[in-house]
């Protein structure tokens, strides 16, 4: 996720209206008439309604919505399988909304490829010749096609199946062929249209895991369409939620869960097992009371703890590297024994987690220890503190504000 700053693909005010009286419909749309009203008045269906998105290089961007929400139309506008009625599509900073067919074909051949819900494979061809279809279209020589195909077939784990007909394969394997075909042309962007929706649940989860693994290897920009929120949360670096052709909310999986933009999104996310998605960083205290230098006096530590009514305190060095906790009783004892600094009494054996640890994984820590959990990033810096009550209330589904109070009281 590091190199995410560059915009790969962008759409601006993209609108697609199906039907004959499009101009009329567009005018109504501009005057904020609803989709239903427009259908009634003009007979036109609004597929996508002024959608704007920025998709970053290397990210998995999920577009989620129920059927009829316009998500598949949106996806097909990206490579202009469906021509948008208005708006812009910008690829690598270049407007491709109106490029002529020849150039568009070139873009489809080299820049973006597509994976389909029902696979869209050619039943009269073998796995290998399906995989190399995109290359064949470009006029790549046959033996080169074959070589590349075998290579990609290995990547998706279908070694040994290259000469079978696609009809002989199971759904999951057929979709691997679809994926391999999309990878064979080595595009920058993968457009995946409900790619796993036709698979049964077990295979589907498998494929999701494998896509995540694969993405770590290939670093493509992936636009993934789904109607399944769990899938969206699992795969997406960012998610856009669509309803009636409108993009309702764009955000990280956590944003969507913790700050649903409206009741529609809220209703959507209600059933989700949020403990697997919400991470420690979302519920932690960002600037906890702490001692910034182990050489600090014991007096300061005691005062801070008393003032806040807490019985332990995190200690970091001046560069915010986490060292451990000091406990009120050891500090008091240390003071009585004539100690002045905290050095030597810092307890490093405390529950710790990474900022992106899901809160479901915090439960064992909460159960095995009374201490709050230190959120320490991969570089060893202290990012925050997660209190025991906040973990429990998040999992049991109490209100966020309530948790914060409990934390303050602690």
């Amino acid at each position, binding site marked *: 996720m590091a190199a995410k700053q560059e915009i790969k693909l962008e759409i601006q005010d993209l609108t697609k209206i199906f039907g004959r009286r499009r101009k009329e419909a567009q005018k109504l749309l501009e005057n904020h008439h609803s989709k239903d009203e427009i259908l009634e008045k003009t007979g036109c269906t609004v597929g996508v309604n002024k959608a704007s998105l920025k998709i970053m290089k290397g990210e998995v961007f999920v577009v989620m919505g129920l059927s009829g929400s316009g998500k598949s139309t949106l996806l*097909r506008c990206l*490579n202009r*399988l469906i021509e948008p009625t208005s708006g812009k599509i910008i690829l690598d900073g270049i407007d491709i909304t109106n490029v002529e067919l020849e150039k568009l*074909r*070139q*873009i*489809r*051949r080299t820049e973006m*490829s*597509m994976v*389909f*819900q*029902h*696979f*869209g*494979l*050619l*039943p*009269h061809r073998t796995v290998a010749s399906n995989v190399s*279809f*995109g290359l*064949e*279209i*470009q006029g790549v020589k046959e033996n080169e096609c074959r070589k590349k195909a075998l290579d990609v077939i290995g990547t998706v784990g279908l070694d040994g199946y290259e000469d079978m*007909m696609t*009809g002989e394969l199971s759904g999951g394997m057929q979709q691997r062929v679809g994926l391999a*075909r999309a990878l064979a*042309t080595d595009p920058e962007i993968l*457009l995946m249209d409900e790619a796993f929706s036709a698979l049964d649940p077990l295979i589907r989860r498998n494929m999701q895991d494998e896509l995540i693994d694969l993405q770590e290897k290939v670093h493509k920009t992936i636009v993934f369409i789904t109607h399944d929120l769990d899938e969206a949360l699992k795969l997406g670096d960012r998610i856009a939620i669509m309803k009636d052709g409108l993009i309702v909310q764009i955000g990280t999986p956590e944003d969507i869960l913790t700050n649903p933009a409206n009741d529609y999104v809220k209703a959507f996310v209600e059933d989700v097992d949020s403990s697997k998605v919400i991470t420690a960083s979302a519920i932690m205290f960002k600037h906890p009371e702490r001692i910034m230098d182990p050489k600090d006096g014991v007096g300061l530590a005691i005062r801070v703890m008393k003032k806040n009514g807490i019985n332990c305190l995190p200690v970091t060095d001046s560069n915010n590297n986490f060292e451990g906790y000091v406990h009120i009783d050891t500090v008091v004892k240390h003071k009585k024994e004539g100690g002045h600094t905290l050095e030597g009494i810092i307890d490093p054996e405390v529950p710790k987690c990474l900022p992106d640890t899901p809160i479901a994984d915090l439960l064992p820590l909460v159960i095995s220890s009374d201490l709050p959990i230190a959120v320490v990033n991969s570089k060893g810096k202290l990012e925050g503190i997660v209190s025991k009550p906040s973990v429990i209330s998040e999992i049991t589904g109490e209100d966020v504000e309530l948790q914060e109070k409990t934390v303050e009281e602690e």
Partner: protein
Amino acid sequence: MYKLPVGKFFESIIDWLTQNLGPFFDIINSILTGIISTFETVLLFIPPLILIALMVVLAWRIAGKGVAIFSIIGLLLIHSMGFWEETMITLALVVTSGLLALIIGIPVGIWASRKDAVENVVRPILDFMQTMPAFVYLIPAVLFFQLGKVPGAVATVIFAMPPAVRLTNLGIRQVQKEVVEAARAFGSTSQQLLFKVQLPLATPTILAGVNQTIMLALSMVVIAAMIGAGGLGGEILKGITQLKIGLGFESGISVVILAIFLDRITQAMGEKSQNKK
């Protein structure tokens, strides 16, 4: 009540065509005569028993053992009844007009599958061609090409073409939408889409159309004997006009055998392409 001059209207169209496009019809006439007589010469040049052997091998390779055995018995029966020459004349006419119907019909079907407007125009024309009683085609055919094999072939082409157009159109339109989308998404040109995706996937349906066209051609060729196309139809006609029951039956059976032979072979071609899928 006023009688609309529909008949007069068609008459004047045909008149105009015969008067103004005479040279054009002459060219078609000589081309068709050339093709038909080439087929006839070839089929009649090969000694019957050798040709029967060749046809049986063909049946065996394409349609299997059962059809091959049927072909041996059936074709030998025709030969022994003394209708071999007539059968070959009929076959030459069927092959010529069937091929022509396909050469025109399949491209029209492809065109119709790609453009809704074309389909909308073509469909009522096909309905007309198929429901108009076959005998009616014989009249203008005679006016344009006089009596003989050529007007028979022309009437047959018109009569036999509709299934080729319809089933080609249908076959291409039935190709799964996602497969077509996939081809486009990978940057196919419309030619690549047609030849690498649509036609291969539509082949079984198109071959069903080929089968229908050939069968219709055979039935029409028999009728075309009424305008002097000869062959088995000529014998049947003789049987009717002279009330010779034996002759009628013998030539009728020959038509049936030829029909079954052609049907099984063209059907087997369709099934083979389906299995490849």
